[in-house]
């Protein structure tokens, strides 16, 4: 059936001698978006039986590349050759019919539909009036073959993140994929689960299929991939065999020379935090998403003046809801939140903002900016206190931020939508850092940033705490970031705080264990 279940094993796959024809080739692919060239004349071959790691910093164009292969994006130039034949991939349906399947980072599944419904809609062999449960047996069989248990009649909303990703894998197998495009789908998984996925991918390639694995963890890529391709600002800057690749070389390709050296600058810490006043106090907080379905379960925590409290955890363990409750975007069911001693529980963002809260949201396009408005207007919306806007002042301030944070924008009056993801994030982060007076709530503040900008932002956050005594609640899926920035580290799992660590006495393994448990 699918490549991985068949027994055909290609010989000599790791060498990729030129006798083996590529499954898929890209020739001179170019794709432009407003304000950015996402892919610039990229040519790449994908061979049968290989795991090809696609590396590159944020915004390098990795997702764009696989989305083109999967028919989600239309390239401006260049061609795609599938099994030796020039092909215009018009849609995911079309891609699937060629055996190309994408497994994205945020699951492409419809929450309110059952697993079966989510799966059958992509199966061309069934007519439109086919009953959904016709595929139940097949789905259960495949689930069993990769060693997972789940009830495919249940709505996807009831599944955990890991289970959702596994459903995507089941889907790929159900669709008899030959080329699996894995876009950061493993990045957020706990390490044990991650290994399981890698084993699956290996089995898949042993059956003659190929996997394009997107990640930004260099070490991991070197361990699991056969070849490594590196994208930088939309250009393919190198393709290396695993045997010949060294971590430093790959890093250099990804980031350029300068960064690699100053990766380990120590950040300043606030002294005598213990004496500081509590800026934020959260007591026994419960937040529900749907009726009766609690996602935050009795969280208590506090942040003092000048302190950075980091919350480590795997995505989807209640971080989003916790942050939104503190900011005032959702009403908690029980518990209390105090900001500067004022009870702000369920009182809305108006109050928390008035008390000097800065907020860097996880989903910038939703809560952080209005992309149809200009940079200037996005700044003015939070900065202007009076009723009348003095545009000259706003303009000066905006220009200053643009300079300080090196935002690539022609001038402050362009709409935010012409900025690339990283620059958009910089506008947002610089604004929130500028307005935070008591507490900064930062949720994945550097996710969309390249390494240099991420360094800058981390330093600014630290300086905000040390220099101005602002308390910082840092919620991040990047454990390294949490470890680097925090004075105190809390571990969240299934909506509960399951561990508290002092920055001086962290045990990384113990934290990871708690995150997964």
């Amino acid at each position, binding site marked *: 059936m699918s490549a991985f279940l068949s027994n055909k094993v290609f010989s000599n796959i790791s060498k990729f001698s030129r006798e083996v024809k590529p499954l898929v080739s890209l020739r001179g692919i170019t794709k432009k978006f407003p304000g950015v060239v996402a892919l610039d004349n990229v040519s790449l071959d994908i061979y049968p039986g290989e795991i090809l790691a696609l590396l590159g910093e944020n915004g390098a164009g990795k997702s764009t590349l696989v989305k083109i292969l999967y028919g989600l994006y*239309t390239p401006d130039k260049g061609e795609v050759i599938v099994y030796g034949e020039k092909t215009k991939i018009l849609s995911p349906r079309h891609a699937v019919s060629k055996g190309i399947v994408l497994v994205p980072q945020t699951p492409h599944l419809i929450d309110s539909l059952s697993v079966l419904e989510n799966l059958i809609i992509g199966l061309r062999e069934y007519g439109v009036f086919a009953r959904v449960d016709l595929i139940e047996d097949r789905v259960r069989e495949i689930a069993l073959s990769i060693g997972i248990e789940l009830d495919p009649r249940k709505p996807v909303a009831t599944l955990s993140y890991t289970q959702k990703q596994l459903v995507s894998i089941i889907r790929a197998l159900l669709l008899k994929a030959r080329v699996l495009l894995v876009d950061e789908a493993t990045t957020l998984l706990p390490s044990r689960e991650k290994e399981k996925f890698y084993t699956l991918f290996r089995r898949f390639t042993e059956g003659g299929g190929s996997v394009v694995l997107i990640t930004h963890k260099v070490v991991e890529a070197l361990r699991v991939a056969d070849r490594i391709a590196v994208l930088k600002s939309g250009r393919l800057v190198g393709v290396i065999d695993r045997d010949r690749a060294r971590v430093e070389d790959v890093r250099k390709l990804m980031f350029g020379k300068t960064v690699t050296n100053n990766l380990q600058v120590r950040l300043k810490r606030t002294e005598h935090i213990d004496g500081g006043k509590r800026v934020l106090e959260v007591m026994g907080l419960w937040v529900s998403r749907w009726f009766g379905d609690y996602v935050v379960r009795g969280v208590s925590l506090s942040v003092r003046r000048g302190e950075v409290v980091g919350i480590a955890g795997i995505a989807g363990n209640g971080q989003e809801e916790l942050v939104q409750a503190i900011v005032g975007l959702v009403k908690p069911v029980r518990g209390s939140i105090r900001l500067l001693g004022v009870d702000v529980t369920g009182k809305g963002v108006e109050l928390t*903002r008035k008390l000097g809260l800065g907020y860097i949201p996880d989903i910038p396009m939703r*809560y952080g900016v*209005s*992309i149809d*408005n200009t940079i200037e*207007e996005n700044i003015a*919306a939070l900065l202007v206190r009076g*009723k009348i*806007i003095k545009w000259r002042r706003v303009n000066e301030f905006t220009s200053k931020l643009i300079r300080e944070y090196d935002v690539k924008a022609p001038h402050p009056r362009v709409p935010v939508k012409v900025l690339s993801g990283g620059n958009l994030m910089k506008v947002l982060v610089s604004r929130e850092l500028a307005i935070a007076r008591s507490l900064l709530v930062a949720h994945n503040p550097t996710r969309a940033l390249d390494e240099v900008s991420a360094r800058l932002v981390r330093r600014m956050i630290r300086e905000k705490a040390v220099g101005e005594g602002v308390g910082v609640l840092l919620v991040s899926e990047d454990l390294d970031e949490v470890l680097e920035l925090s004075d105190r580290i809390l571990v969240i799992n299934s909506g509960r705080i399951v561990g508290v660590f002092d920055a001086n006495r962290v045990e990384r393994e113990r934290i990871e264990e708690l995150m997964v448990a």
Partner: protein
Amino acid sequence: MVYLVVLRRTKPLPYASILVPVISILLGVLLSSIILYLLASIPPLALFNLIVRSFTSPTVLKDTLILTLIGLSLVIAFKASIWNIGAEGQFHMGMLVATWIALFTPIASIPVLAKITCILAGAVAGALWAILAGVLRAYVGLDEVPVTLMLNYVAYYVLDVLVYGPWRGRFTYGYIRTDEIPENLWLTLIPGTTAHVEVLATVLIVGLAIWFMFKYTIVGLRLRILGSNPEFLRASGVNVKHMVVLALGLSGAIAGMVGALYLLGDTHRVSYPVEAQTAGYGYLGILVAWLSMLDVRGLPLAAYVVSSLRVTGITMQIAGLGGTAIVFLFMGSVLLTYTVAKVFSEYTIVIRR
């Protein structure tokens, strides 16, 4: 096989804000003339002649002013992405309250103050009627389009109840309608036209105020952000519910004001059944607002074009069709072509084979 792909332009189409309305008006008129030719055998040339003549008709100025005001009302709401389709009802509520003051209160006899009171009361009534929809939208979560639309019907019938019953006049020659309002309330004609000085003044004052609001005030900025990303507005510490109610309230206030002005300047009384007598300004205003590309400065021109089309419809009596049919056709076709044409200001279509 030919396959059409829609792509966002990397640079916006130059002159889109002029090209889009002009092209959609031309294509829209063309579409209606084709429909009228095919279904009612109206010769396109005769129709075009009539349209051209309508542009210089002496009655156009009156409609232009009124529609500019309704356009202003709707631009406020539309910029905030609040689709107020209820200007028609808000207009009639304004008319209702103005009628009441003019006919049944002592204020009516005080010069100047009477007019101002009528107009302001009309604004308040229109605002309240719109706020009803605003509250349902903000606090209950009901889509404002069906709500404002249904409230139009309710407004018609409320006025009908009054005119048919308690407000029916004594000197109506058998018609079911109210008495005429006192003459000291009538608006002043601009010589040589059917338009009124007071309406022109209102256009200037309200127009300037709204232009200033959107350009230089934080409320204006917030309304615009409400239109593009309400979630961000909420996260920035603004009470979005209040903003929704405010947008509808302001919008309704202007529409209600126009209802009062129309009574004082034009009809001087209300006739039953209201829904059959209406000029449909509330609906025409939707077209005006969109054709202006939601730019206050473009409103008078858009209003002028729509007024001329309306005059064409009214003068057209060939084939026994009432003017209503043709006005609807014009509105529908121009709005349709506008909706599609607007896409091309931001997107292009490429053909893949």
